[in-house]
């Protein structure tokens, strides 16, 4: 069987890793050697989809059609979209799963995410020299059921069998545990591009037991950038301030400024305006820190709550592990130190540690890493809506998963033919203040009110995903359960998207062939140019002309989209230059012979 890969599907960057004989390793882009794939997806007017660094660069030119952090929208509905989101993207005003509008076409977040996963799958296949069909994907620990389902759907759309969803901080703890072998209480502080998580774990004898977790799925380094970009934009003339291109450029500048402020005390920002003008200014670290301090403070509150939920004090924590690129910000490191009373451990690359952990979990699942076991928890309480729109908890937050709860239901009126169960997730008292996950309809035989007795079992699996089964207590027979996800894709939608994704995969294969043909074309064009310059004297009359024609033909084909034509033009050039190449070989052999004494031959 082919290897199972571990994927860190991040808000800003994504990575793929695998567990090898000498530990986990990140698999790079076969073309460039890059280890981080920007989680950016650009939809071009001609229907093409570009992923990664190139897509990121397109954000300035086509801001609405380039999705920079789709993870923020996973498992949401249109009512969860903020005003700021609306300034950056277009959304379809529809119920159920959120839909972005790109190039006039509606796409769901799992479909956008699947493009990123497909690219990582390709990287992994190139590195491993084998098909990759199974993966472990990481999610923020604080992701709710809908967000997890959406991530799993994205995997399926990318042609991956998602064996397990692992929480990012927990995955990081696996990499950390394997590396250091410490035992005791460990706090993982994970501040990525778009999400914040903290997990308190107990490491003992190879068991990684999560005691408590907390987080905010809409808090990350992107928010730091946004605050800084807003500050800079406010200083611009009103007429260009709201220009989408200016917004996108400002965000990119803010991000770069943030990076340099992690090292230095001030950063220079220069921006070319669409009206031909230019803006230059200096941002100091103190200014930046004042902007982000309220956000960083919020992470401290979450950490203290997690400690309390774990029944621990800061002094019980043996080690604090910093995960996520945003932990490079000095103010964030200061916050970790303030909460836990010790500086964070930073010897593992904060960008890679989650992916490495996902690779280890892939090894655990396939039996390659038998001594380690992860016991994770559900981040948010799960319950149902009961009389008076009240939320009744069935499974408390921080309960170790898998977890099950049973509840008995009956009918309220005579001859009722079904029982509806509304499942929600959250910590609030009123049902409407929590996140609706799904409505389950269970059919019953018509009987007087209160007679039917249905036992409903709520089961949260090791992925943190809920399933519901029902049985008639009087007959002992299982009952069917019809699921209506509140913000997820229905089975029919998934079916349709899977079909489309197969079509897309064909298109993807075509694009890859174009790309590869272009690389080969560039290689031979370059070699021909070099050899002509070096060995032009070896050309026969008329040969130079013929080669030049073949070169031009290949250059034209290379800039087109037809890979067959590129291959054909490649073959023509290759054949045309063959006699010339043979002569070069002969002549270099001759010159080698000429230079040497006779007895050496």
């Amino acid at each position, binding site marked *: 069987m082919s290897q199972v890969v571990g994927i860190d599907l991040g808000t800003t960057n994504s990575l793929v890793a695998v567990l090898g004989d000498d530990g986990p390793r990140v698999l790079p882009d076969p073309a460039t050697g890059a280890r981080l794939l920007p989680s950016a997806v650009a939809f071009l007017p001609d229907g093409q989809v570009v992923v990664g660094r190139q897509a990121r660069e397109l954000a300035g030119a086509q801001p609405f059609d380039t999705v920079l952090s789709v993870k923020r929208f996973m498992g949401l509905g249109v009512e969860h979209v903020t005003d700021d989101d609306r300034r950056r993207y277009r959304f379809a005003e529809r119920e159920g799963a959120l839909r972005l509008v790109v190039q006039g076409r509606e796409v769901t977040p799992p479909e956008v995410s699947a493009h990123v996963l497909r690219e990582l799958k390709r990287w992994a296949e190139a590195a491993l020299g084998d098909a990759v069909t199974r993966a472990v994907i990481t999610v923020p620990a604080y992701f709710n059921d809908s967000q997890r389902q959406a991530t799993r759907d994205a995997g399926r759309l990318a042609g991956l069998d998602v064996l*397990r969803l692992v929480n990012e901080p927990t995955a990081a703890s696996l990499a950390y545990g394997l590396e250091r072998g410490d035992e005791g209480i460990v706090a993982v502080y994970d501040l990525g591009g778009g999400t914040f998580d903290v997990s308190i774990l107990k490491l003992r004898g190879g068991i990684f037991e999560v005691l408590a977790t907390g987080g905010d799925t809409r808090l990350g380094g992107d928010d730091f950038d946004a605050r800084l970009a807003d500050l800079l934009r406010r200083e611009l003339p009103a007429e260009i301030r709201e220009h989408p291109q200016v917004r996108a450029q400002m965000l990119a500048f803010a991000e770069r400024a943030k990076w340099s402020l992690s090292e230095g005390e001030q950063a220079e920002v220069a921006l070319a305006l669409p009206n031909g003008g230019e803006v230059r200014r200096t941002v100091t670290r103190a200014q930046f820190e004042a902007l982000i301090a309220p956000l960083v403070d919020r992470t401290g509150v979450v950490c203290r709550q997690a400690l309390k939920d774990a029944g621990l004090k800061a002094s019980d924590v043996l080690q604090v592990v910093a995960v996520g690129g945003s932990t490079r910000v000095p103010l964030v490191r200061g916050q970790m130190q303030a909460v836990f009373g010790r500086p964070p451990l930073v010897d593992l690359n904060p960008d890679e540690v989650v992916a490495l952990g996902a690779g280890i979990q892939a090894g655990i699942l396939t*039996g390659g890493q038998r001594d380690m*076991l992860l*016991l994770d928890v559900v981040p948010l309480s799960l319950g149902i809506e009961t009389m008076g729109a009240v939320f009744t908890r069935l499974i408390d937050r921080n309960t170790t998963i*898998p977890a*099950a709860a049973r509840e008995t239901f009956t009918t309220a009126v005579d001859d009722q033919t079904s029982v509806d169960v509304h499942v929600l997730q959250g910590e609030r008292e009123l049902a409407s203040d929590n996140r609706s996950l799904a409505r389950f309809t269970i059919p019953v035989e018509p009987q007087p009110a209160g007679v039917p007795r249905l036992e409903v079992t709520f*089961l949260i*699996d*090791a992925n943190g995903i809920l399933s519901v089964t029902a049985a008639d207590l009087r007959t002992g027979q299982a009952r069917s359960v019809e699921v209506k996800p509140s913000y997820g894709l229905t089975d029919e939608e998934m079916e349709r998207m899977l079909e489309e994704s197969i079509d897309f995969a064909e298109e993807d294969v075509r694009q890859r062939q174009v790309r590869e043909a272009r690389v080969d074309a560039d290689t031979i064009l370059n070699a021909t140019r070099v050899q002509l310059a070096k060995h032009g004297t070896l050309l026969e009359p008329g040969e130079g002309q013929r080669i030049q024609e073949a070169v031009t033909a290949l250059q034209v084909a290379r800039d087109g989209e037809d890979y067959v034509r590129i291959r054909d033009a490649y073959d023509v050039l290759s054949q045309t230059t063959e006699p010339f190449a043979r002569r070069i070989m002969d002549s270099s052999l001759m010159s080698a012979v000429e230079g040497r004494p006779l007895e050496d031959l």
Partner: protein
Amino acid sequence: MQTVVTGERPCWRCRVDTAGALVCPGCEAPQPLASDADLFRVLGLPRSLVIDAADLERRYHAASRAVHPDRHQMADAHAGALAVGASAAVNRAYRTLRDPIARARYWLDLHDVRLGDDNNRVPPALAALVFETQEKLEELRGANGDAALRQEIEAVHADLASRIAGFETDLETQVVTWERDGVSAAPATLADLKRRLSEISYLRSLLDDVDAAVGA
């Protein structure tokens, strides 16, 4: 009602006798939980109120290693589903048994004693304390950021926490005596335990209220 199976419990996959273990000793397949298995049995313990915390954790870790779905990922769907169910039971057993209060409540459940609705009523012994605390909390909500009042509430918080700790220690010594005397299921003992549990859970929810008020 299913009768308790005595003697052999063959593995559903390889037919080896599993002797009621969570996983088959022969082929490691997770087994369906026995119909008579309570949370003590799930972790291989007798129905006792007295439990050694370190031993409980060891049993929990060993059981998790055996049944967790991660260990049965490559097996068939049936084994996978059984692993999820068994793992959920093991997790519930640990969660319930490691907390002396939850353990005692569960133990009462097994003896068909319900704490029932009167659990929500203020236990007479605590009436004065509850009244006083609620009044202070009310005042604190009214007067924004009164430092003196806040200090008072923090003192109440500390008092409640130490009372709960005292009750818990007391309960633990009591259950040791009961177990030793072998009167664990005597009606008077059950009534006494029930009263103590009511008081502790009332104090715990009062402490939560104080926490919420102080945190706000």
